[in-house]
């Protein structure tokens, strides 16, 4: 297990499979006896109260774009008992979370993570969430989707640059191991919250080289392996340029019991890229991902590295209809951006999506953070481009209409991320 290729093969499959055997295989592959990553702290006051404050502790590229941790796990947990959680449940959950903070440094070298709760979870209580919390149950966000709604109770999101770290963190948190990274856990979530089905454990990855590495024999990606080696995402372009992302401040709930929290939408989206790569040339892909103007002006080279920290999409909004009529296409980014700006021009959504090969299908886990969930709904409505289909028949419901032809929404869930101080089974008030 020492040559680079087989090591990569093991690491590729490990997070997706999870469990003790994967962890062992993972450690074998990197030539370690046990997980050996930076450990954390038992002083919670040294950690941000904003669970989503990852920006200061993850890598950035040379342009200042946030580089999300390479390996990620989403655990959609269901409470094991009906009704309201007890104070004993809360203490157990907080001890489990505190153990995770002790076990791993709060960074991409250790584990960054968060826990969020669904509107269905808060329905367990007699009182409702405060009026000013905008986080309704999930619903359909386009005229052509019929997703499964994720209404489990809790969403634990683990992320690290190291596969062994996220797998060990998950195993200890779920009670399958007593320690992780050499640190004993005082408690686990077991007995309070668990996975109701295998489909509630979802995994993924993001980063240069990772999609290309995983594209062979993958349902949804053409057999000839078209994903560029450098691309962090299956569709062949960078995304999440710093200037086109909300700041963590902008997505933070400012007051009330959930101050320092945020709302989190997570969609699971299947990608079908045969025609994306097989029927379109590079310029056409640029036109559909960014805008026809990007394609005409040659603004995008390769995966878009040359764009630096700004997709330039704001320059293409005023003439979107003209571009659509003239080129017969409209760009995904330009459509969405129309609804993603405050009056002062600042961006509302902080998107942290990553890729997945769960069930051997090329897919995307799409977490988006925003102060109000309605901001997300509005951006998705703009992305549907229904107004543009009415302007010209060349733009159809899902053809020539950004990337809608190539993505299939399988799941949607809405979540409230409480501040760290209320992260263990919070009450609605």
């Amino acid at each position, binding site marked *: 297990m020492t040559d680079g290729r087989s090591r990569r093969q093991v690491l590729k499959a490990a997070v997706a499979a999870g469990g003790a055997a994967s962890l062992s295989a993972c450690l074998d592959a990197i030539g370690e006896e046990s997980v050996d990553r930076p450990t954390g702290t038992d002083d919670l006051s040294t950690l941000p109260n904003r669970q989503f404050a990852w920006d200061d502790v993850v890598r950035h590229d040379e342009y200042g774009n946030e580089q999300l941790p390479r390996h990620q796990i989403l655990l959609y947990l269901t409470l094991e008992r009906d009704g309201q959680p007890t104070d004993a449940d809360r203490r157990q959950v907080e001890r489990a979370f505190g153990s995770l903070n002790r076990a791993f440094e709060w960074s991409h070298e250790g584990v960054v993570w968060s826990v969020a709760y669904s509107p269905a979870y808060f329905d367990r209580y007699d009182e409702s969430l405060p009026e000013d919390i905008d986080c309704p149950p999930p619903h359909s966000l386009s005229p052509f989707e019929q997703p499964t709604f994720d209404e489990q109770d809790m969403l634990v999101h683990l992320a690290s640059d190291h596969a062994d770290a996220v797998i060990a963190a998950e195993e200890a948190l779920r009670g399958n191991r007593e320690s992780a990274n050499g640190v004993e856990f005082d408690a686990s979530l077991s007995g309070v919250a668990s996975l109701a089905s295998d489909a509630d454990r979802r995994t993924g990855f993001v980063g240069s080289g990772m999609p290309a590495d995983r594209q062979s024999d993958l*349902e949804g990606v053409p057999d000839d392996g078209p994903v560029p080696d450098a691309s962090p995402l299956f569709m062949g372009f960078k995304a999440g340029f710093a200037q086109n992302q909300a700041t963590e401040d902008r997505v933070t709930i400012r007051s009330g019991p959930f101050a320092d929290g945020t709302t989190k939408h997570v969609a699971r989206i299947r990608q079908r890229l045969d025609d994306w790569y097989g029927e379109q040339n590079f310029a056409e892909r640029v036109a559909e991902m960014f805008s026809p103007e990007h394609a005409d002006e040659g603004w995008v080279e390769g995966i878009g590295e040359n764009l630096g920290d700004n997709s330039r999409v704001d320059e293409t909004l005023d003439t979107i209809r003209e571009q659509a009529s003239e080129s017969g296409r409209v760009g995904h980014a330009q459509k969405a951006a129309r609804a993603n700006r405050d009056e002062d021009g600042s961006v509302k959504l902080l998107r942290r999506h990553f890729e997945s090969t769960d069930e051997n299908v090329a897919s995307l886990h799409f977490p988006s953070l925003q102060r109000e969930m309605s901001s997300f709904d509005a951006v998705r409505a703009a992305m549907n481009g229904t107004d543009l289909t009415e302007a*010209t*028949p060349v733009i159809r419901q899902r053809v020539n209409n950004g990337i809608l*032809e190539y993505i299939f929404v399988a799941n949607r869930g809405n979540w409230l991320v409480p501040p760290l101080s209320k992260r263990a089974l919070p009450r609605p008030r």
Partner: protein
Amino acid sequence: MNRRTLLQAGGALGAAALAGCSNLISTQPAGNPPVIDDRPAAVYYPTHVEGMDMVGMGESGDYRFGLMYSYPHRFWNVTGTETTRTGIGSGDDVHIMASVWDSETMQVLPDTGLSLTIRRDGDIVFEEVVYPMLSQRMGTHYGANAGLDGDGTYEVTVSVGGMSTRRTGAFEGRFGEPASATIEFDYSQGARDGLSRELTPDRAGERAAVDPMDMEMMPTGTAPARDSLPNVRGSATSGDAEFVVGTLDSPPAGIDGSDTYLYVSPRTPYNQMTLPAMTVEAATGGFDGELTRTLDSELGYHYGTVVDSPGDSVTVTPTVPPQTARHEGYETAFLAFDPMEVSL
């Protein structure tokens, strides 16, 4: 195979070219005749006529779905005024076609988004947005060439998007929501190869069309017969399509206003298939602008507007051709139009 490569190859994907595909299991019909060089810029009789078979039907609310299949086909996508040929890929086993219609009026819904997901034992083997297409036998339907995973039983989920096209009359407030139905498909290459397939060298290229198919229970995308439309004022022909023009004293239910309603109902020659997803402009009296794409339970799919003081005649100018893919025999028609004058 990239569709552009095919185009550069001069479009002659005949038996000789196919003989070079040394698949162990040939999934191709025994070579399609090349596309005719001197095709008319109009509807023409294709080089071959292939049979199709009903896979099954499904329903969801008011929606009815029909699923059919045939041999893989070449077809032409349309973007604006450009056509791009899609050839038969080496992995294609079938051309799979879905039709969606209203359970009450049996009218085909021509102008929405549709996707097909084909699973075998729960695993996805095909999932695509399939394009609206025009064929001489079916009119508007939704179709794609698909590769399958050998003989066996497949679950085909047909998913239709809610329509954003204006809906009037008995369609007002309906068909705005998505729906889907799953239809079982027992596929075998043997059964597929048993579908009829006729080469038509004697008629190919003639200005004519293959007769529409006649299937019980399943409508074709035919426009309402001229005689059944209310208050027809006249018609004109351009781009090999016929444009029937009529007026109503007041617009159909679902459209505000009480003035004259002008409607234009375009259709193919010979078979009277609906031509959806166009931009049609009109000028009469004080009105000069785009007509609205509309699906009405009486007028069918048409282009219409309220006009407060129509003149003695109307000028009808299609500016964007039907944005539907074309099966062979339709790919050179309905692409370029001249203004037409019809007396009112």
